[in-house]
């Protein structure tokens, strides 16, 4: 006699160690196998886009910190770039170089967290996580030097940066850059050919390039499929056309490729910072002359950057008042999540967590 089985619903989240925030999945399981999931989002909704309409253009910058709070600097930058485009502000070259440096540091910090927590999801008991946090801490220290903050930096301003870098910043950054490649090598030694990690992530959660493009997935998740799309190359903003760097792509779009792509991107970020440091003008303004109460002319502008998680865009509409008429955010994390359901169907519960972790989302950005 065959034993009768029936699927059951397991509610994962919103409070769960591996949901990276308050994501909730209603998973239908057949034993260990995931038949279907239903993502439920919105637990962290704060109406940031609406709040923008009640603030001045500059006053909205601190709120962008709260979007993807893992990489606040990138959010600041994308928003400021959108407003600069709208108001026609020319950012001084020194500020642009510093923005590149800061954005790449932010990428390193984000990827360290992404890969660290991804490995935690794989079940590596906090060791890679803490090793990576150790380095991320150094980036955060550098950011603290700049802005006085360690999470929500609020450092970028429309037209440049809020202030010039302190004297001790560049030597400290130099020390960090000298050590970072060795640390990335250390992670590789620990993890790159770890049999268990390969077994858990190779071929798991595959997404094809076509599927990824149809879901407008971007960032490392898209590049892991082998499709080379990086806004720093495809639509160079700031000064990215001046630097030499490669865009690492994966082979087949599985979790392992996403992990590797992030690792390689950290190396490339170090490369970019090295070049930017070499060319950085030692003197000069870090902020364009922008009036405190900015009235951009009527119109709209969209600026996008390759944030650590993918394409982050801000669409700002102005009606010539001191507040934006409308701000729309193109959230990387939310769009990267859209294919989750297809990716996890038919895999086991453990894979569900790993695949979800490999996408690297931040709920602050998903729910806004």
């Amino acid at each position, binding site marked *: 006699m065959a034993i009768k089985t029936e699927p059951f619903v*397991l509610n994962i989240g919103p409070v769960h160690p591996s949901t990276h925030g308050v994501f909730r999945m209603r998973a239908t399981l057949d034993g260990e196998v995931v038949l279907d999931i239903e993502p439920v989002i919105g637990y962290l909704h704060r109406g940031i886009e609406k709040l923008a309409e009640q603030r001045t253009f500059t006053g909205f910058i601190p709120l962008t910190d709260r979007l993807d709070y893992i990489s606040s600097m990138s959010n600041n930058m994308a928003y400021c770039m959108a407003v600069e485009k709208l108001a026609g502000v020319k950012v001084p070259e020194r500020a642009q170089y510093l923005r590149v440096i800061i954005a790449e540091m932010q990428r390193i910090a984000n990827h360290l967290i992404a890969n660290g927590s991804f490995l935690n999801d794989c079940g590596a008991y906090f060791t890679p996580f803490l090793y990576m946090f150790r380095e991320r801490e150094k980036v955060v220290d550098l950011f603290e030097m700049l802005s006085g903050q360690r999470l929500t930096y609020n450092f970028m301003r429309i037209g440049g940066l809020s202030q010039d870098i302190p004297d001790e910043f560049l030597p400290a950054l130099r020390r960090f850059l000298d050590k970072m490649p060795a640390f990335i090598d250390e992670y590789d030694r620990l993890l790159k050919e770890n049999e268990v990690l390969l077994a858990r992530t190779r071929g798991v959660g595959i997404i094809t390039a076509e599927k990824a493009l149809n879901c407008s997935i971007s960032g490392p998740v898209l590049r892991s499929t082998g499709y080379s799309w990086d806004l720093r190359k495809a639509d160079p903003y700031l000064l990215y056309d001046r630097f030499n760097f490669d865009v690492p792509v994966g082979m087949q779009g*599985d979790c392992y490729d996403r992990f590797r792509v992030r690792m390689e991107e950290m190396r490339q970020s170090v490369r970019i910072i090295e070049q930017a440091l070499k060319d950085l003008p030692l003197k000069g303004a870090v902020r364009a002359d922008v009036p405190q109460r900015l009235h951009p002319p009527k119109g709209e502008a969209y600026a996008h950057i390759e944030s650590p998680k993918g394409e982050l865009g801000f669409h700002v509409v102005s009606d010539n008042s001191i507040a934006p008429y409308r701000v729309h955010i193109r959230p990387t994390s939310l769009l990267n999540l859209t294919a989750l359901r297809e990716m996890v169907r038919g895999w086991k519960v*453990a894979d569900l967590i790993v695949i979800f972790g490999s996408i690297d989302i931040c709920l602050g950005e998903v729910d806004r």
Partner: protein
Amino acid sequence: MMMPDFGTGARIALAPLPPDWPGGFWWHWLFFTVLVLAFVLSMVMGVIYIERRVLARMQSRLGPNRTGPFGLLQAVADAVKVLIKENIVPAAADKVVHWLAPVVAFAPVVMVFAVVPFANGALLADLNIGILYVVAVSSIASVGIFMAGWGSSNKYALLGGMRDVASIVSYEIPLVLAILGVVLVAGSLSLNDIVQAQQNIPFILVQPLGFLLFFTAACAEINRSPFDLLEADSELTAGFHTEYSGMKFAMFYLVEYAEALAVSAVVATLFLGGWQGPVLPPWLWFLGKVFFVFLVMVWVRATMPRVRIDQLMAFAWKCLFPLALLNLLLTAAEVALWPGAMPLIVIPINFAIAGLLIIIWSKFFKLGWGRVEV
């Protein structure tokens, strides 16, 4: 229960007992029962402290260092904390099963220590089927764990409990087969005799493959990382003990480390020569070896990600099981062919064969990239 067997069997085996032990059967029983309980409870605190400190060092952080000197009292503080915590039983839980589960899980782990020798003859019961008893008793703990998973009426706990049963059923087999190699070489099932057979050479040299198999299978059986699927904190929040709090949770915590301690003790006894060793007193050698094995477990935990349930099963059946069979065959042939010349010829041969087999298996058996069909 083991009492009747103990009465007859142990009396005969008491011969190597040092004469100055408190005389008589009942004194012996009382003394060692108290000793074993005290040993397990205090050593569990010890290994928890060691695990937390060593793990912290390996992860470049500090670990507990505030409670008492070097944080030594952290385990005590934690124990007091859980003792005064509220005991919550879910409304939908199967109350009896939920209550009994920690006890069922804890008792057998302590019972394992009844047959582990701390020095020559210094053990509660020198059963002539000692190692069989260890294997039999230690798998009862999984009943308790499944009871916890089932009785909690929680889906995470149920998944954890099911994983536990699956892994125990699979890993029991390579575990026993690996033990059989040692038993063949030693010619006895009694742990004390096995230790005495290692007078000259610890069995890790004679049975290198058996050691690896036993250690791996034992880690899987007690759900140490990388096989800690049943409480997989990133997937199942806390697995089978999700719904436990207070002292009952502490019991499971205790079980986890007592099991690790039991496996360390059995590994030390079977493969590392137990209490044998020069200069230092036997019990110190024994403790040292137990801690060493435990440190290896901590090291593995700090390094490895977790395997998936199907990979766990595949690993047991496709890798450990055939290797354990081959190891048993090989040992049996050696014992039958050269009973006298065991150590000298056999050690290099066994190391070569173990290396060869492991290389072959690592070539043809991958843990599986992607889907593994079991």
